[in-house]
């Protein structure tokens, strides 16, 4: 991995954490983002990273993977979770499985190219990371998260027949996902799960922006996206999952 546009000054600590996380997440084959390969490159050493985690109250685990890169493992919740917390997490797992199926199909359709295809590849990567995160909430509580094998996924006929049909379905799905994760911020009880949901909502909003631009030539939407509750989000998923 080549570092590009490396900042000459140390980044603010919060931004540095995001880059460190992305350092492991970014696939150079699929997206062309500035990539950092070491903590030093973002102006934060290992001790600083740890203290950042401590300051933020986040449970950050550092493990050696491959060439010693860092792993953000801050998603598993501590302590017992309420039924509603686990229900929201289960719904999120299903939503991510649906999202991954959508992006996989969209990419395989070969209806998109250039920058748009790069966006889709990156979004697929995001969704895979989200799935890992929300699955950890369930496994961390002693449960078994669902896998793609547990569902039959059905998309409307012709969904992947053209660039426009893909963009329209993407717009619908991502609108649903943003609403569901904003709803999850309300519904989760533990603060760390609220934070996780908010971070994923922000990521899904970026995906939404891509499709909004493709469909309406308008990448920026409303100031206050609407959260949806568990029931509404469940109804939305029922349209695709059985």
């Amino acid at each position, binding site marked *: 991995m080549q570092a590009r546009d490396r900042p000459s000054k140390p980044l603010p600590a919060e931004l540095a954490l995001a880059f460190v996380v992305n350092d492991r997440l970014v696939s150079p084959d699929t997206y062309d983002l500035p990539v950092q390969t070491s903590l030093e490159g973002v102006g934060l050493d290992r001790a600083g990273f740890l203290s950042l985690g401590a300051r933020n109250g986040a449970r950050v685990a550092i493990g050696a993977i491959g060439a010693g890169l860092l792993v953000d493992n801050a998603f598993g919740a501590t302590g017992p979770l309420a039924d509603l917390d686990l229900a929201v997490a289960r719904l999120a797992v299903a939503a991510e499985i649906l999202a991954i199926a959508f992006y996989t199909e969209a990419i395989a359709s070969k209806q998109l190219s250039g920058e748009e295809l790069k966006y889709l590849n990156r979004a697929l990567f995001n969704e895979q990371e989200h799935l890992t995160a929300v699955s950890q909430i369930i496994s961390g509580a002693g449960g078994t998260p669902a896998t793609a094998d547990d569902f039959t996924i059905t998309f409307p006929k012709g969904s992947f027949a053209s660039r426009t049909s893909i963009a329209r379905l993407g717009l619908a799905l991502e609108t649903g996902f943003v609403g569901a994760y904003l709803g999850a911020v309300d519904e989760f009880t533990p603060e760390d799960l609220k934070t996780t949901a908010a971070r994923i909502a922000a990521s899904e909003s970026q995906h939404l922006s891509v499709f909004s631009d493709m469909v309406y030539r308008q990448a920026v939407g409303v100031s206050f996206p609407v959260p949806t509750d568990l029931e509404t989000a469940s109804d939305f*998923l029922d349209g695709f999952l059985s």
Partner: protein
Amino acid sequence: MTRLKIGLVTLVLSLIAVAAALAAPARPTAQIKVLAAASLTNVFPKIDQAPSYSFAGSDALAAQIRLGAPADVFASANMTLPTSLYAQKLVEKPVAFATNKLVLVVPNSNRAGIKTVFDLRKPGIKLLVGTATVPIGSYTRTILKNLALTSVLSNVVSQETDVRSILSKVALGEADAGFVYITDAKTVSGQVKVIPLPAWAQPPVRYGITVITSTKNHADAVAFINEVLSKKGQAQLRAAGFGAVKGGVTSYPGG
């Protein structure tokens, strides 16, 4: 030349007949007794009408086996009960042979106006569930927990000992709603309305089948189980709405 051709054709036909005989599961010769989950009431006789069947809640059937009831095969609506009996050496190691899904059924009149499972939160709803020990009751409690809806258990007016009791009472309008398997709902098509439950909250429902250790008809019991696991048996199960077991076995290993 012609004689050679006839000979070859005869040989090929004989081989086909032998292969077909080997592929088809041997049918039980003695009349065996099969204890089976109530949800299998319609489909098992279609697979083989010869056995003497006793259909009831799987937990009640397991209790009969513990008490030494004479029977040859046990087919349960979960894997928990046969696995527990296996640990007690009362049955052989069970195999999974089908899956199922839960649905909510409401009377055709649907006076309570139930459209989704979330409507069960309305006060005054009369809800039917299985007892906690029968598989349908256990799965119902799991799906309600998965949906964060355990509070609706306060609307339960009766706990039934098997799924068919829930179904018939809802069909008769004795309750506003009840949880049953999708395969049961299919058997009374037109008599109840079926409300699907969210896929993301469904518990894995797997049916287990096994030979009862005390059987005097072991070979016939195994032959029956192999009929259930055979292509023909599985086709009957699919037609009745049961799902396939991923990576499931096609013949009974026994033991």
